[in-house]
């Protein structure tokens, strides 16, 4: 199980929010499900990450009442979508070059992000 480091956590969270607006616990569950348990995001990292994204204008938040519970839903902003796109392209380039180094005989693994 890999706990995402800071930096990648922001990208992972933004990636989740791109699917639909989500609240904190939903993000953790969805991330674990979609990564088949590979990414396990701790609450101590999730909430500072969400608040940081909000502060930087990459995500917005609003309270909603669902089933008698108030939850804070987060969604990416236009700037957040743009930042994710740029970061995704960068990760793709990084992964491609990384595997080129690991496989010098030319068996390159192209990673789609």
């Amino acid at each position: 199980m890999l706990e995402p480091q800071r930096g990648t956590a922001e990208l992972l969270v933004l990636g989740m929010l791109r699917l639909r607006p989500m609240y904190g616990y939903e993000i953790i569950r969805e991330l674990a499900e979609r990564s088949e348990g590979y990414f396990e995001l701790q609450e101590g990292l999730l909430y500072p990450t969400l608040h940081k994204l909000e502060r930087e204008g990459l995500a917005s938040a609003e309270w909603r009442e669902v089933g008698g519970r108030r939850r804070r839903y987060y969604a990416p902003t236009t700037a957040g979508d743009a930042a994710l796109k740029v970061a995704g392209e960068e990760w793709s380039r990084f992964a491609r070059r990384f595997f080129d180094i690991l496989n010098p005989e030319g068996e390159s693994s192209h990673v789609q992000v």
Partner: protein
Amino acid sequence: MSRSDRQEMELFLHRVRQQLAILDPVEQREILEELSTHLEEVRSDQSAESADTGDNLEGEESGLRQRMGDPVIVGQRIREEHLARRLSVRQALWTAWPMAAAGLVVFFLPGTVVGLRASLWQGRPDPGFLLVLGMLLTFSFWQARRSGQLWTAVLAGISGMLSLLAIHDTLAVTSDWPLGRLGLLPGYIVAAASVIGLGWRWGSFRVTLAVLSGMGTYGLYAWGGGSLWYATLLLCLVPLLAIVATCLAPRRYYAGVSWPALLVTWATAFFYPLIYYPALTDEATRWWLETYPLTFSRLMQMSSLLIGVAGLVILLAAQGLAWGRDYRQTQVGTR
């Protein structure tokens, strides 16, 4: 949820809350509410899992803590992130002075600050103006630093001053009373609209309501001819309406401003013209003394001066306490 689950959750939140004490009260409440909902769902899922597997999580050292981690660490990380959005003293000063300078330039626009210009031309210092300007800028700076919403706080403060002075000048034009009021009315409307708009947009709604209700009270009082009963009614009614309005406003539209600070701001906005006015011009002073009994005038002057001074002391003391608490928390965090 069982009683022990509830107790465990409350203990967890209490430990987190201790780390967040330095933050704005509104921020704290929202963070803790968010975490509380999260904890309920985590516990609910754990209970469901334990029911499936037959495990008993009761009595273990917190299935919740195993899942969520150390609440002190969780609270510290959240606190660090929220402190990062605060402005440093240097940043607040650096960005506040252009707005303060712009406000002062606007003050000298023709038709808006007749009294101030007259006072300066005559070479008399205006302690009332300086006192209230100092109060509002201190308050604005304090709010800016706590919430990071610099432009809100500073512009609300400057706009509040403009509104006060526009009303004040309306009353100062005594030679041609109806035209004087009408001539300055656009300035008053623009200033009031700017206070409302800025406060609404950036979250200092309570501050702007306090300023508006104070100056509005004074404006209505003067417009109504200055009778004591009328003034008493307004003094009771307008702040009550302002308080009700702020209670009804959505929480996201105001920063965590304390009620004492708001009341002081309101009182200053109301009483300010009463100490400023006699220092204005000889003509205005004569008008004031002719309109109101001498004893009442002097009483209002003294009380407004005392309230203004008390307000400044309270605000500076509160800011000092806040800085002291920030410093102590920072020291704790670095151990």
